[in-house]
């Protein structure tokens, strides 16, 4: 009985995932003109999984931790945290088995409960994940951390729940580096900023006196690279988040921009504009020797390595309008992958799985964030607005973050999942642009 229910419950979860995958595949396999309609029809079919996350025991911090977990799961679009007022069983103790009928009655498919204790000045959080209909424990884990890191514990629990129920890695215990923007459009202050993926704990890395742009994480997550622009020239910096040490990539003839790490963190690809011509270069960070990868008299910029490091997708207008191209990471075999009628493609970003490329597309007076297969096929448009640009992948490849600007308004951070179903602003209160997602933290 219990096993049957357990399987049935897993089937439901599995069905959800299959449904999501199906939507994605249907979308990408359909001809572009029909893709939007297909998605709209299917969007309504996806039912996020109802999950109960009662306040953890142990006082305010326990309630705060559950609040963060609920917000994370809700924002993923795959879960629907139930209203705590509807809970029948109150003061659930982690030491006891939940009263499953109480949770079935409110149709909670899964239940997360936990308790916070103080262990020699450190927070200890025990939590359980239950399959309500199978009446089975799926996870029982303990996390400890210093009290000020209670949010990271909440993110780690969120990741554990997400991974156990979807079969995919989570992305909640991550950070985002971006450019915080303030001030009017023609006198904007831009500060390099890092925050948790849910928009909390922002910390400024530069003071706004110099214009900064396009930060990117290294796969080690402790190092970022970004571009700084002054009237007398531009600089690409490497910035170590742990030590706070900042160093320049070096002096180049011309203007440097668009830096990106290779997946192993050992190289940085970037553009140099010289005599009006922008080409892509790559520098080995150990030997500090750089080589030129493109030499076309067109704009070649916005490089992005494939996760295996063997290829680079980039943006070039060598055909007359900006399109996406792929080449070997040594510059070999340059080939065009986008041929969209009337579309201008920029800012390609290879997905963490290697399967997809996200991009910005401009059609007429609108901007879109989209994804396509790495060979350029099966394009799928996820967003449409006055100005959307610069997608970055969550480390599990399920969600994209980007900047959105309304006409005459401020640029803000938004996110969208790869099905296009869950589109929402990132809960960071200020203006922001150029987000870059970190790998999962350790």
């Amino acid at each position, binding site marked *: 009985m219990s096993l049957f229910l357990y399987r049935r419950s897993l089937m439901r979860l599995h069905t959800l995932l299959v449904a999501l995958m199906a939507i994605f595949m249907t979308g990408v396999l359909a001809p572009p003109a029909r893709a939007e309609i297909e998605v709209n029809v299917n969007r309504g079919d996806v039912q996020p999984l109802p999950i109960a996350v009662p306040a953890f025991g142990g006082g305010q911090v326990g309630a705060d931790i559950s609040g963060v977990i609920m917000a994370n799961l809700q924002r993923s679009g795959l879960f629907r945290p139930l209203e705590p007022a509807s809970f029948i069983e109150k003061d659930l103790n982690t030491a006891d088995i939940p009263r499953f009928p109480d949770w079935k009655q409110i149709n909670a498919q899964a239940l997360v409960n936990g308790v916070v204790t103080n262990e020699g000045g450190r927070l200890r959080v025990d939590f359980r994940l239950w399959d309500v209909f199978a009446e089975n424990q799926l996870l029982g884990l303990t996390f400890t951390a210093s009290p000020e890191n209670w949010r990271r514990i909440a993110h780690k629990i969120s990741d554990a729940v997400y991974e156990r129920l979807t079969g995919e890695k989570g992305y909640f215990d991550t950070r985002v580096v971006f450019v915080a923007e303030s001030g*009017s*459009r*023609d006198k*904007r202050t831009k500060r390099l900023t890092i925050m948790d993926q849910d928009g909390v704990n922002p910390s400024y890395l530069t003071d706004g006196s110099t*214009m900064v*742009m*396009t930060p990117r994480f290294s796969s080690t997550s402790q190092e970022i690279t970004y571009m700084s*622009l002054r*009237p*007398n*020239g*531009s600089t690409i910096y490497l910035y170590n988040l742990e030590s706070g040490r900042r160093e320049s990539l070096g002096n180049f003839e011309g*203007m440097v*921009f*668009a830096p990106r790490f290779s997946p192993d963190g050992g190289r940085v690809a970037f*553009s140099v*504009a010289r*005599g*009006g*011509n*922008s080409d892509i270069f790559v520098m080995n960070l150990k030997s500090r020797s750089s080589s030129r990868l493109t030499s076309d008299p067109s*704009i070649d*910029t*916005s490089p992005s390595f494939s996760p295996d490091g063997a290829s680079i997708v980039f*943006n070039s*207008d060598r055909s007359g*309008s*900006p399109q996406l191209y792929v080449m070997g990471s040594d510059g070999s075999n340059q080939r065009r992958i986008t041929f969209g009628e009337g579309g*201008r493609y*920029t*800012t390609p970003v290879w997905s963490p799985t290697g399967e997809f490329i996200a991009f*910005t597309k*401009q059609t007429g007076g609108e901007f879109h964030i989209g994804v396509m297969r790495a060979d350029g096929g099966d394009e799928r448009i996820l967003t449409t607005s006055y*100005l959307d*640009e*610069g997608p970055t992948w969550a480390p599990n490849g399920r969600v994209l973050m980007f900047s959105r*600007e309304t*006409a*005459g308004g401020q640029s803000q951070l938004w996110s969208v999942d790869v099905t296009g179903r869950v589109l929402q602003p990132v809960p960071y209160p200020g203006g922001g*642009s*150029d987000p870059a997602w970190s790998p999962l933290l350790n």
Partner: protein
Amino acid sequence: MLIRLNGRIAIRLAIAAAAALSMAACAKKAPPPVAGPPPAVTQPQAPPQQPVAPPPAVSQSILPGSQQDFIVNVGDRVYFDTDQYSIRADASPVLDAQAGWLRRYPGVTVRIEGNADERGTREYNLALAARRANSVRDFLVAQGVTSDRISTISYGKEQPIDAGTGEEAWQRNRNARTSILSGAQ
């Protein structure tokens, strides 16, 4: 000229102050004695007419060879079509004049700042605006301005001169500005 203007203001202030002082003096005067015949009243004689010369005319003009001269009399900015970096017909006379001015003042060095409108992504627009700056540079060099006097920078879409939206604002923001760095009067 500024000093002269200030001088005039100072004189006016001095007159006003003197008038105020004399009025104060009047107020403090003791009342005139009641007794005695009033003095014969005589109309004060109008002083002989003397023509008062107006203050000498001050003509104001922009100092030749100054940054203001360049901006006002030559024009420091030229504009581009959407996604283009070729020098437009309406930009050529401005750049001709820039080149002529720079030949006349050979000690001047300039930086050409390329700009783009907001209708593109950040990095592409940096590259596009770099092309625009370079187009202006090439034009000036072809007109005899030596290249070591010219540097270029691209601000992409980061420094709009018009914070508005719409084609009019975008057109203003697609430009290259020739900014004087040193050597001007």
